[in-house]
């Protein structure tokens, strides 16, 4: 199993969710986060105060998948989240030691397989 962690633009979230849905990847967690990845600077002015926004709004997705689902997941996110400008985000694929499904106590591959799909 792997944990796919992606940091993307908030305005691309819907495109990414749509792409993941089409690729039949179900089960994910998202969080609104702030971060900085070398975007071109964003300057805002309020009366006499001019500020440079060093942190941008981002969305972080976490998706636990079985190994053969890693590529479809990464591709779906990559294609849907890309604008070509600096600041499109990152995708990290991390090894996972153990997964439990709380409701049933299932572990590992069975725990990351969506309901109604035979593990395999």
């Amino acid at each position, binding site marked *: 199993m792997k944990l796919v962690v992606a940091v993307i633009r908030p305005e691309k979230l819907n495109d990414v969710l749509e792409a993941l849905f089409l690729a039949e990847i179900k089960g994910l967690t998202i969080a609104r986060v702030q971060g*900085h990845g070398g975007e071109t600077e964003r300057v805002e*002015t*309020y009366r006499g105060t*001019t500020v440079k*926004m060093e942190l*941008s709004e981002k969305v972080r997705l976490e998706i636990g998948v079985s190994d053969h689902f890693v590529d479809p997941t990464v591709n779906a996110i990559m294609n849907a989240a890309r*604008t070509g400008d600096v600041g499109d985000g990152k995708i990290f694929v991390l090894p996972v030691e153990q997964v439990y499904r709380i409701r049933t106590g299932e572990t590992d591959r069975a725990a990351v397989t969506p309901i109604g799909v035979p593990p395999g």
Partner: protein
Amino acid sequence: MALNPADTAWLLVATALVLVMTPALGFFYGGMVRTKNALNTLMMSFSALGFVGLAWALVGYSIAFGRASQWCGGSEYMLLHGVTLDAQGTIPHVLFFAYQGTFAVITAALISGAIVERMRFGPYIAFITLWSLFVYAPVAHWVWGNGGFLAKLGALDFAGGTVVHINAAAAALVCAIVVGSRKDYARQAMLPQNVPFTLLGAGLLWLGWFGFNAGSALGANRSAALAFANTMLAPMATLVVWTMLDLMRTKKATAIGAATGIVVGLVAITPAAGFVSPMSAIILGAIAAFPSYFALLYRARTRLDDSLDVVAAHGVGGVVGALLTGVFASKVWSGGAGSGVIDGNVRQLGIQAIAVLVTIVYSSIATLIIVKIVGALSALRATPRDEGLGLDFSQHGEEAYSRGEGAILLLDRRSE
């Protein structure tokens, strides 16, 4: 005629009330867009106060209230020449000018509801300024100006149902089509960022509308009192019917529905305010809820991204109000100024329909020409990237709800 102190005092107050309607409209609209476009939407109303207001003072007022012909005013009042303290009716001319100016501002700002969240700010300002001169001012001349042809025809429009609401809605429809729909329209849910803003805006619009309708009597008199009472009663009836429709359809009385119902009632009573009995105003307000309610539902299922439903609220509500004015206008209540179908004057309904049609046709064609010219000089739409980032940052360099995390103070930009 001599100046009348009571009339002058009331029009001073009424002018201030109508002026506040434009910021109120900003809040009404601003609550319904997404967070990233809240400031831009508010600015579309606030900026009209400056740009349209000045254009009105320098040129527009003369086109609307000058004398040249039945189609268009002349140049005698341009640059405020001849707008003096002398009596215009029973109030100082300069007060009459100011009062009318507040109408020009809000009419232009109404259009913004159709193109929020994607139109660039500069072309928007250019468009509404030109529109106020070439569309609003002539139509105002036809209905209210010296010898305007719709006035001669006998069209009844007490406070601007045709001039303001139908006129703005026709322009809004053209703008929505030419500018095109938002890139996320019909692809993902776009929820209102602040529903309390929308209710606040609707409440302030109702307050301001007393100046709009009762002030249109141009005096502190019986006609003003009638318009005032009707401006209170009609939206009450619309609000009740709207809430019932909501309850029947979804079993929930929605807050945005309440705000919309109030505005539709206000729009509908506008042309009728000083002509119909209070009981007729209640009936008119109740009837007006139906067409707009179902127009809103229908529009949301079409490809037409009239984002904040200017056409369903102001267009449909305005047409219903204009036609029902021709039905309910009463000789007794209007002091002989108008009579409709209930007085046996069926012809009035036809005249109302002609005024509505003429306004829609002229406003649509002239709007199309202006928006095409502005579009030829400069892109109307924000780029998809700017639209994605939101117009608050891309057009104004600000955010509505900035938390300041990660903001680094630039002390002196010249030293960079």
